[in-house]
């Protein structure tokens, strides 16, 4: 019944995009931005001298190549992105710091999602008391501002490791996946295919993980990415306040030190500017992935 003769090649190409929703331009752009940051970390470790990240390993406050600082010093190729106020090479700082920031976000989000999936399924499936407790708990947790508690906690605790920080942040990102999954599970358990699975003698675990979970994947992905963003924002917020890991380079820590050493007044823009740009790239990448996933799971948003 269909014939292709009266369509231009361009029209066909545009519509081919619908056949495989995962080949979504937004998704691809977002993924390549994030992969770029990961590649920076990997390639940097191979091709750059990471010892330059230690204090005093380089001249102080050198600008990036092609710029001059207030002391009329020119940037040198030994330190292409310049150095900071205590003589650390900016490039090696970024090579170590940027993946660290991303890692905290992903780890916190992974932990949060796992807890969310577990609690969401429990609430949706077991109903009754369990559901009430989980629902009230997640609703209450949503109203508590995470930064406030984390600031108090970290100030008391002092130095923490990256993993510890991820775990602390994860305590505040499990609520929304819990609510999302609970709602989906409640509507899905009445659906025809779940009834069919029950008729087929399927165990509860089979119904949860083999029948329901695959259909939740688009939601889970979207929620995961949104959580990564929130976690990175929280982590960077703590670091910029001077909390969080003290001895591990992160983007937020670099910004904190820049502000603390008067980089703004001394016009040392590369010190705080370049980490900020990398953070922006990270957030734009995550946002694009989230928008792309939205279009994948909701075909009505796709435009011809």
């Amino acid at each position, binding site marked *: *019944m*269909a014939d292709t003769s*009266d369509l231009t090649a361009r029209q066909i190409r545009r519509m081919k995009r619908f*056949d495989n929703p995962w080949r979504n331009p937004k998704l691809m752009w977002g993924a390549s931005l994030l992969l770029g940051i990961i590649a920076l970390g990997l390639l940097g470790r191979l091709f750059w001298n990471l010892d330059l990240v230690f204090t005093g390993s380089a001249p102080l406050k050198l600008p990036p190549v092609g710029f001059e600082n207030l002391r009329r010093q020119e940037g040198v190729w030994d330190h292409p992105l310049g150095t900071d106020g205590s003589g650390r090479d900016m490039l090696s700082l970024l090579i170590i710091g940027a993946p660290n920031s991303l890692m905290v976000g992903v780890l916190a989000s992974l932990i949060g999602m796992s807890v969310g999936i577990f609690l969401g399924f429990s609430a949706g499936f077991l109903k009754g008391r369990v559901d009430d407790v989980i629902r009230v708990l997640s609703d209450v947790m949503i109203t508590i501002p995470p930064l406030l508690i984390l600031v108090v906690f970290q100030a008391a605790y002092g130095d923490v490791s990256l993993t510890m920080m991820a775990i602390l942040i994860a305590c505040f990102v499990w609520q929304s996946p819990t609510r999302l999954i609970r709602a989906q599970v409640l509507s899905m358990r009445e659906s025809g295919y779940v009834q069919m699975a029950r008729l087929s*003698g399927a165990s509860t675990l089979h119904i949860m993980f083999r029948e329901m979970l695959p259909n939740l994947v688009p939601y889970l992905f979207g929620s995961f990415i949104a959580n990564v963003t929130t976690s990175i924002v929280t982590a960077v917020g703590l670091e910029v306040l001077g909390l969080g890991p003290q001895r591990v380079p992160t983007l937020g820590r670099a910004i904190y030190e820049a502000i603390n050493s008067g980089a703004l007044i001394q016009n040392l823009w590369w010190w705080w500017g370049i980490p900020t740009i990398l953070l922006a790239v990270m957030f734009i990448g995550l946002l694009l992935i989230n928008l792309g996933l939205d279009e994948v799971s909701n075909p009505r948003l796709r435009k011809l």
Partner: protein
Amino acid sequence: MTILDIRNVSIDFPTSRGVVHAVSDFSLSIPQGRRIGFIGESGSGKTTTALAAMRMLASPGYVSAGEIHLHSLGRTNVLEISDEEMRRVRLKKISYIPQGAMNSLNPVMRIENQIWDGIVAHEGAVEQAELQRRSRAVLASVGLPEHVGSLYPHELSGGMKQRVCIAIGVCLEPDLIIADEPTSALDVITQRQVMQTLRDVQGKIGAGLILIGHDMGLMAQSVDDLAVMRLGKLVEFGPVRQILENPQQAYTRELISSVPLVGGESFIQSTPEVLRGPPGPLLQFESVTKRYGALTALHPLSFTLDGEVPKIISVVGQSGSGKSTMGSLMLGFTPPTGGRVLFRGQDINRLSAAEQLGFRKDVQAVFQDPYACFNPFYRVDHALKFPFRRFGLAQSQAHVQSAMEEACHAVGLDPALVLRRYPHQLSGGQRQRLIVARALMLSPKLLIADEPVSMVDASLRATILKNIHDLKDKHGISILYITHDLATAYHVSDFVMVLYHGHVVEAGPPKDVIGAPQHPYTRLLIDSIPWPDVSRDWGAAEDGQRGLDALSDADVARPALRGTIPGFDLTVGA
């Protein structure tokens, strides 16, 4: 006078696999005050054509050729006017009554506000008192009381919501009303009320009517002219009497003959060789009751179904009569409030895990909605393979494959065309037959078929019911057939129970119960069936309601038991 003139219209849907010609070269004129039916299977282009006249085609579809003229717009082509002009045409000149009224009303707005919306959108500011007067008048014209205006949609029944949709559609007295399967989700009694209401208002305001549907009986009772469509083409057009009594095209004849009738020839051929099971009671209800809060869904009921000679027991009734609750009780999905449900002498709600698995294998179901029964994530094979393996029937990979193919052949499907596909690639009819094939592979002892054909095209119903009937004869499976369609129950079943508000009001062999009903409720159900016969009138709009109102408690408490059949004993009451 012609209201709407569709001339040589073609509608295309560009897709990545090429252009789909949904409608090709379609011409039709609709005269004032006349009712035209568009009939055809799903995918025949009937809704698409009607939506093109309202310029509401779903993207990316477009009208590739032809013109549509609306008389009140003079010589202008509807397809060429601006969006703003088109907005003024919608509802004012052509109104559209959608298929699922449940989803068409705004759940957070009162009914009268939703009626006022349309009036204000077309006439600007109108005084509150005037709006009140008009919404009351239009609600009265569809037979709804005044207070309905101040209610929210969730407070109304399905039939009332559909009538509200009609009220919104006629409140500006349009020239043409397009009704897209307005009764497809309703049971026979409500269907009759809604259809007759629609006919009455349409006659009162003198508008033309396009009724879209796939039920020949409904068409015969509701329209003047009938347009038969197939694959986007007009197959036959003429007065409904001529089409029913003297169809010219083979396809039209096929559509007409696919409607099962009460009485007359059966579309089922019984095989004298029936596979027998072991003797002894298969399923027993021991004064089973089900209450949801204050509402009693099922009043005490006892029966024993013997498993030796497989039988089909039909349970018929309106929506809300408790028939689906009965199915759910038998499957063990809901525990009874009182009494016990026994399968082979064991209480199904007190089974151990191992017994539970055995029970699941022996009692299977076919549900109403073939679209929801497949997990969209998996290929359809999953639904067939999984239980087969789970119940330990599979011997090897090849054995599973051959069993699936055999089951597909048995229900008339070509395995090469359906297996290894995703559910959304199959039609509703194919999916429902696959579910029957699934039941067949497991060879259960009892099958609960809950409205198995109400969501498939009329032309496919007979085939699927034949498949189900074969399960009984060839595979020795007893079947509980839950339906609101008395005509099919008449043909396939060995015993019929009529349910009303959780009471069995009439029961017995189908030839007695449906062929010569004694209880007023059964009579009402049968009178509400739309016959594909123009001379057999359907009665007035209020007959249905009057009939229900006349049913006294005494009638309900006095069931008409019309004899028994061997192997099935029924006791009503505690």
